[in-house]
């Protein structure tokens, strides 16, 4: 079983999500290797993985996340000397910010990160994350670090504010994040809404700096964006849109998401809603034929372990739209309290109280929806017919075509995986 990531991983991916930003870990290499590997997998920015290309000190053969390789001597004498060496080494390769994050051990040394920024003349380029509430949830670490970056770099909007919106609450740690951006932009475009930037997944530092000009912030996954949205509102008066049904996963939540935006921005959502309508017709034809032969998918079973913003809409949609039975529903730590409450209530309402908040591996199901490791492990143990990877850590499958679980395209994708999955022999 793979343990769920905590605030350290969340913090690292907040910064690594930004195109021209880089994390420097003040840590032993043990904290670096894994995170550098995942960052490079999720958001490859170099053309090669050849360790000889990154053989310099601090990089240890990996293109991402250089570290101070702390050892016993540093724990006793402090790590300032290494920080004073690593920062000038990394800075010339980096257009954007350098976010220095202390590992659990490094927080106990108490080195003054800001002093090293000053000494190296890199105060403007560096952000210090001295402690990230270890063992607390990944979303908490994520938002804490992202807020530190935003506080330092977002510029006052000036007189001319933009009509564009920001998308918040998406990180490179989200499965299919690139496909999700494409799909959300496509749907918003149908409503005449232009996306200025997606913060932080794949955005640039320039976009971060200009993000205070947006007319609205749209929160996709509340765990990763609601606090940030509130910060923009307090600081720059930018209103935010938070959909009570969760992220736009499945037709129903996508409709709700688009309607929330249309209502808040006072715009017409009909073209985007028509897009969903067409997709529903396509889905109907396929499901109808499938259903008439097998009676399925009604009665098929599923389990979910995911962030609350995904688990809520997905559980409801699979239940209402496909008539599937939720046999185990569990949200990951750091969930949005509103979504968690709504999901708990929903499970109670539909008579599945005992299936709420239990691990999806306790009994066999048709479809398991979870991180790649959990899905892989359940498959290996014949505890599911098919699995849908909806979170990190990822499985081994390489996606070449951009995919998403959100929006219209995402709903069809989920249907495809569910319907084909149910047919598989366990």
């Amino acid at each position: 079983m793979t343990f769920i990531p905590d605030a350290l991983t969340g913090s690292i991916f907040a910064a690594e999500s930004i195109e021209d930003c880089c994390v420097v870990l003040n840590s032993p290499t043990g904290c670096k290797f894994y995170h550098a590997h995942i960052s490079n997998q999720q958001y490859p920015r170099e053309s090669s993985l050849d360790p000889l290309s990154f053989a310099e000190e601090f990089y240890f053969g990996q293109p991402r996340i250089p570290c101070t390789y702390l050892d016993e001597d540093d724990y006793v004498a402090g790590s300032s000397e290494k920080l004073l060496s690593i920062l000038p080494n990394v800075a010339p390769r980096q257009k954007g910010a350098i976010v220095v994050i202390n590992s659990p051990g490094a927080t106990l040394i108490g080195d003054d990160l800001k002093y090293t920024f000053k000494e190296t003349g890199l105060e403007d380029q560096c952000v210090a994350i001295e402690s990230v509430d270890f063992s607390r949830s990944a979303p908490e670490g994520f938002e804490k670090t992202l807020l530190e970056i935003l506080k330092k770099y977002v510029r006052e909007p000036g007189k001319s504010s933009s009509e564009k919106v920001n998308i918040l609450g998406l990180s490179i740690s989200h499965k299919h994040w690139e496909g999700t951006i494409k799909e959300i932009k496509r749907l918003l475009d149908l409503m005449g809404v232009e996306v200025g930037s997606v913060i932080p997944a794949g955005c640039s530092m320039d976009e971060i700096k200009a993000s205070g000009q947006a007319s609205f912030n749209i929160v996709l996954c509340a765990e990763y964006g609601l606090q940030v949205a509130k910060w923009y509102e307090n600081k720059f008066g930018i209103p935010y849109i938070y959909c009570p049904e969760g992220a736009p996963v499945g037709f129903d939540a996508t409709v709700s998401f688009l309607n929330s935006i249309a209502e808040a921005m006072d715009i017409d959502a009909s073209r985007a809603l028509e897009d969903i309508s067409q997709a529903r017709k396509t889905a109907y034809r396929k499901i109808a034929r499938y259903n008439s032969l097998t009676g399925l998918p009604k009665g098929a079973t599923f389990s979910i372990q995911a962030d609350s913003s995904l688990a809520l809409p997905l559980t409801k949609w699979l239940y209402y739209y496909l008539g599937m039975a939720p046999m185990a529903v569990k949200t990951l730590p750091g969930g949005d309290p509103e979504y968690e409450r709504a999901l708990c209530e929903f499970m109670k309402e539909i008579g599945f109280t005992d299936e709420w908040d239990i691990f999806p591996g306790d009994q066999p199901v048709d479809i398991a929806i979870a991180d790649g490791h959990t899905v892989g492990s359940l498959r290996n143990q014949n505890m599911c017919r098919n699995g849908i990877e909806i979170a990190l850590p990822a499985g081994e499958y390489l996606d070449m075509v951009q995919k998403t679980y959100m929006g219209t395209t995402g709903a069809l994708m989920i249907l495809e995986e569910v319907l084909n999955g149910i047919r598989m022999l366990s």
Partner: protein
Amino acid sequence: MIQIALYGKGGIGKSTVSSNLSAALAESGKKVLQIGCDPKHDSTRLLTNGNSITTVMEYIRDTLPEDRLLGDILFDGYKGVSCVEAGGPEPGVGCAGRGILSMFELLDRLGIHEIPFDLSLYDVLGDVVCGGFAVPLRREYADAVFLVTSGEYMALYAANNILRGILNFDGSSPRVAGIIHNGRGLEHEDERVDAFAKAVKLPVVASIPRSELFAEAEKQGKTTLEAFPDSDVATVFRDLSEYISHLVTGSNRLYPSKPLENSEMETLVLGRNIPVIKPDQISSTHIPKGPTDGKDTLPVRKNLYSKSVRNKEPLHGCAFAGAVTTTSQVNGSLTIIHGPRSCGHIVTHFLSSNVLAARSRHGTDLPCKGEIASTDMGETSFIFGGLEELRNKLEEAASQGWEIVFLVTTCPAGLIGDDLETAVSMVQEQYPRTKIIPVPVDGNLAGDFAQGLVEGWKKVSELIDNSVSPEKGFVNIVAEKNLSDNVEVNFQTIESLLDDIGLKVNCRFLNSTTIDSIRQFKKGEINILAKKDDSSQLVRDHLENCFNASFTDMNFPIGFNETSKWLEELSHLSGRKNDAEMIIEKEKQIYDAEMTRLRPFLQGKKVLINTYSRSIDWLLDIIFDLGMDVLKIGLLHSSAEEGFSSKYAGKVHVEDNYTAQQREKDILDHRPHLVLSNYPPMFASDGVHYDSIPFCPEVGFRNDIFMAQRWSRLLRLPEIEGWKIDGEVIR
């Protein structure tokens, strides 16, 4: 607002000075915040009528992060002085320095900087000069630092140490406000303080006389200023308050930190030079010496150190992860990680990845392994120590009936010095049927990943029953590469070969091994190392020394030549030489036929090898059998192996510390047909093919044939695949 830190040795009277100074500043109309940064949390007591206030550490321990409010830890004292006390853990546990760091983070998060104080005063313990207690010295907190000292040597020594701390932060920029002399009434005290002040080029900004009024006021729970407003002492503090006001306006200046060397301190304060005694001058007479050479004869406990640790190289990975990789191989055991969840996440991620890869790439299910749990150390454990959580976790495990529990520690657990033995013995007493085995590697404090493997193996070997006798026909497999996805495939191959010559595997030390199998380890007559890398050699040494284990010279064989030799050697021991010869003969025919078929494609082709692996004779065997030429072997720096031993030594050119630049140059200069690397480079060059050398090749007869077949196809394929051209575009 100006922020002032008062540093001084414990017991010197900082808190009395701080609270009287705060009182004087408040009397003069200033809005003052006093923050006590001493674990004994009595800095502000005289400002709050002698009452203790809730400390920030207590608050952090008892209140959920989202429920925390500034109003719960900020209290009004005399004349409206706002008071905060850091507090700290119980003596002997946790990390008080981390507590100070957490307090500053919390105050910042709760918005203390939004309150318009005129002056913040930090009262800080100066004996402890770790990073946590130095936080108030940081520029973002202290604009000015006062040193509080008496004329005693240790107080002056602490003051000098604080100056050294400031120098580390500031260099030569001025931030020291001066010395506050809190008199003890000692003989020549004033002279000593003055001499010190002169030597470090600082003014003595206040001399507080020894007075019974302090004790009187303290009895009343008040500052002297409040209790005896007309006293001389009160005047000293008012003057000091005035001095600070002039600091704010700039009419009093700040000074750079110019600490003394220790020897200078001793000369100055003690009036004598104290030479440092070198080891060869006078050593303790209690150490027994050898009669002839005079050297120490005390037994030194030998340890087995990994390559990186013994050479003091940068550590690759951490001992914690290595140790968990080992202990988690024991079926029926539980490994408890004492550390933050991130450590558990990282280690379980690569262990699970391996299980999934074994299934998807090789179709093998890795057999059941031990389970892993975590104490999930967080901020509170960092400050107060994590023993309570640890004890709870151990009790939970023991009550669930686990027979063996390994307890592996991470960096934070090691750094805060959690006393594992006490926790373990308490639980062990309550649950005698559970054996708890601590593996105190403390993250990477013990060393790198390889060192962790060794520490794990050593600890697991404590389960071996020394009374068991070897039995003929049984072998142990030692130090399999557990993180390689072909570990099970390789084992199955070896097990099958052994079976062919009448040998049975007794214990896999350690891969998916039962507790009973470990206990019966000594039933194995012969031990076979899976690989001869550095950490494997160390476990071999350990098992030889502690359990008289007998090893074969050969590790898992790769390719026809090695496997033939390996079978011959082992069949000698099992007495089944004929069986081995028959297998070898059969495989030889297959090998020879394939070599004959493939040679025309590969003969005379030039190969450049660059590799982290130091044992590549299996690769050289096939290259030379095919009639290919080796241009050079470039050895890359490896954290796992050193040296290079080969039966082809002298026949091939070997270059150590090979680099990417050298490789590129060699390719351009020599135009090899084939470049073999553990990681093939991405650049394209005409006439050159690239292929990878597996870190953990598949063992047995056929892998070399597989490689040769692959190269023969490879050389007939395009030299530069189309996708690589796009890589050039990206670059």
